[in-house]
């Protein structure tokens, strides 16, 4: 048992009351003999003379009533409740004051939460410096504050993490988009470069083919139908025609084919074209052509559209060697983002097949010229390349949706004509006729072609003056010679055919002119911006076509220089 000196002595009493402001000294009869210094201001019922059990209840240990009972448990922790204020509890211990049976309770307010200090009407200095509870309360406060700060930091971390994750996702989307755009740009640059190369080759080939086809025509006009050489010349003509067809496809891919865009009723075109397609596709392929709603008119070149559909249909047919479905659909699309937003939108011409489809590698190269998955000799690899070039030249876009084993869908998006202008009426072509001594200025820098045309036009009855370049031609005109018609190449070293025509017109007024080219780099010709007294012919052409154009120009105009 713990013993303390009797605290009723005045000096000791003062000391005890100061050191333990909430202490209580009790007699062996359980009456309060001395109260700690803080009781007077905190609860005056705790005072000398008051019965201990009148003001306190012993919470723990339980079942103790006499001083002897308490003294027997003096080593235990006691918890007392102040009856006048049940929320206020004291925690401490009893010590014996000598051997009389009197006791001293030494302890302080039992507080586990810092907030209880104010709630119980206490202050920090109610805990004497030697009482660790004061420090404990400060630590509790700091602990609570640190916990709140940790929660705050966690919340900020979560917010930052969420923002970072969102930014990462955004960056991934941007990087993916960038990669796609870069791939598109690379593909576009590659196609552009290949197109320029193909166009250049086609130009030179066309001049050669022009001479071959021209001399074949001249030769055929000289040999009799029974001459055995005639069959050989016919074979040369067929080979030249095939070569000419190839160069046309190359030019189309290089977007250098001459187009004459007009307001076009695509639904009507497809209905007409369907008749041509069916026999070409064969019986094992089920063809369906459908139009959704009112399409209005497209702004496109009719022959280009036919070439596009024909090539796509051939491609679809070859992808379905055992037969299948080929579906051509037309509908209006207004959801296409373009740099120059078209109010009228686009007309989508989709060609879907149920064929073999393509893997990603094949899809990536599908539009490259000379790329083919067909067996050698079965395809030139130019069909889809031609489609690509023609669509681009028409101001359209082509999309390819394909998966190996699941067929392919090509979607050609063609500009819709905003004015809803009716389609142009077809003009019947005049028949070829010879000349009647009209004066014709021929300008051609390629000797092979110049010599051929000179012979051809002379034989047809025209008076020919030939010049090997535009400067020579201009000198001839300026010397005072008059001409009924000018036939000129387009791409020449010193100036272009259209520039030459402009200079001749500046000097002498308008003159009927036929431009010829295998490589139409001049935008005004490609876009069809020819004037009424001008014509354009794509090399190679057969001699009779040139004679028709010349005759028609002379017949419709009476201009002479």
């Amino acid at each position, binding site marked *: 048992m713990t013993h303390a000196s009797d605290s009723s002595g005045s000096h000791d009493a003062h000391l005890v009351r100061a050191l333990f402001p909430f202490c209580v000294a009790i007699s062996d009869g359980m009456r309060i003999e001395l109260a700690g210094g803080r009781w007077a201001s905190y609860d005056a019922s705790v005072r000398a003379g008051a019965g201990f059990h009148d003001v306190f209840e012993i919470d723990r240990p339980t079942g103790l009533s006499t001083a002897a009972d308490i003294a027997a448990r003096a080593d235990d922790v006691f918890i007392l409740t102040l009856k006048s204020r049940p929320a206020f509890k004291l925690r401490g211990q009893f010590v014996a004051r000598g051997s009389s049976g009197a006791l001293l309770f030494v302890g302080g307010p039992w507080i586990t939460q*810092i*907030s209880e200090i*104010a709630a119980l009407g206490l*202050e*920090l200095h109610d805990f004497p410096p030697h009482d660790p509870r004061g420090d404990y*309360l400060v630590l509790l406060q*700091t602990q609570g*504050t640190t916990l709140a*700060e940790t929660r705050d930091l966690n919340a*900020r971390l979560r917010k930052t993490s969420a923002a970072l994750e969102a930014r990462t996702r955004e960056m991934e989307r941007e990087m993916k988009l960038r990669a796609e755009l870069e791939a598109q740009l690379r593909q576009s640059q590659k196609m552009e470069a290949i197109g320029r190369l193909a166009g250049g080759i086609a130009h030179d080939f066309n001049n050669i083919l022009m001479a071959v086809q021209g001399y074949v025509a001249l030769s055929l006009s000289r040999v009799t139908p029974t001459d055995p050489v005639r069959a050989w010349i016919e074979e040369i003509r067929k080979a030249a025609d095939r070569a000419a067809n190839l160069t046309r496809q190359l030019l189309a891919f290089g977007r250098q084919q001459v187009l004459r865009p007009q307001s076009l009723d695509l639904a009507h075109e497809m209905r007409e074209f369907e008749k041509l397609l069916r026999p070409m596709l064969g019986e094992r392929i089920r063809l369906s052509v459908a139009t959704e709603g009112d399409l209005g008119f497209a702004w496109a070149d009719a022959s280009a559209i036919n070439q596009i559909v024909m090539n796509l249909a051939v491609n679809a047919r070859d992808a379905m060697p055992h037969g299948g479905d080929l579906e051509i659909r037309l509908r209006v699309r207004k959801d296409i983002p373009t740099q120059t937003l078209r109010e009228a939108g686009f007309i989508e011409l989709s060609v879907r097949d149920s064929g073999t489809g393509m893997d990603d590698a094949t899809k990536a190269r599908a539009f490259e010229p000379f790329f083919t998955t067909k067996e050698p000799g079965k395809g030139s690899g130019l069909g889809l390349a031609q489609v690509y070039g023609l669509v681009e030249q028409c101001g359209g876009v082509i999309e390819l949706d394909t998966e190996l084993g699941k067929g392919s869908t090509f979607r050609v998006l063609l500009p819709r004509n905003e004015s809803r202008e009716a389609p142009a009426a077809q003009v019947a072509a005049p028949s070829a006729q010879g000349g009647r001594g009209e004066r014709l200025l021929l300008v051609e820098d390629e000797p092979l072609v110049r010599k051929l045309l000179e012979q051809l036009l002379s034989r047809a009855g025209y008076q020919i003056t030939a010049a090997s370049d535009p400067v020579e031609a201009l000198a001839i005109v300026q010397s005072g010679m008059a001409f009924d018609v000018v036939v000129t190449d387009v791409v020449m070293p010193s100036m272009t055919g259209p520039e030459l025509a402009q200079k001749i017109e500046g000097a002498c007024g308008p003159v009927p002119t036929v431009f010829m080219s295998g490589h139409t780099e001049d935008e005004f010709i490609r876009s069809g911006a020819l004037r009424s007294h001008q014509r354009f012919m794509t090399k190679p052409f057969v001699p009779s076509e040139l004679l028709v154009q010349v005759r028609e120009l002379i017949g419709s105009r009476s201009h002479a220089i």
Partner: protein
Amino acid sequence: MYGLINKAVEGLVRSKFGDAAWDKIRTRAGLPDEPFISMEQYDDKTTYDLVGAASAELGAPAEAILEEFGLYWVKYTGEAGYGELMKSAGRTLPEFLKNLDQMHTRIKLSFPQLAPPSFRVSDETPSSLKLHYYSKRPGLAPLVVGLLRGLADRFEVDVTTRTERVEGAQPHDLFYVTWKPRATAGTAG
């Protein structure tokens, strides 16, 4: 100084001048964009740099910034986690000021590196006292003026202060503090 002080500076700037102002001040003080940790010890220079940057950005003298900070500090500690301690430190202005030194001593338990100023009260009357402020850090007397204004709000009294520099063996700042009950808004009648 502990991060708690710098957090309070940040809180003052953000609440009175906005987040953009804080970003400018923090940048000018050369500090990274990261939260202060209350229990972490920072170099005193960080706090001085923040006060200097705030003074430059806000176009106010450092003394005014410090006084404003003192006013805010009472509110901040009362609301940001130390409210109970503040409440347990006294029910009246003079009681609080007398316990202030003891409170700082106790708080060193949680902030062992804390080098708090020391406060001593003398010549107390029912409406005045002298507050002796001892600090190893120079130039912070305006902060105490702000603290007294903040405590006046807390205890709802009107306070007037006069400051005097005391040299000698223990040089310190002496604040003559007088107070009277705050006049509440009168009612007609």
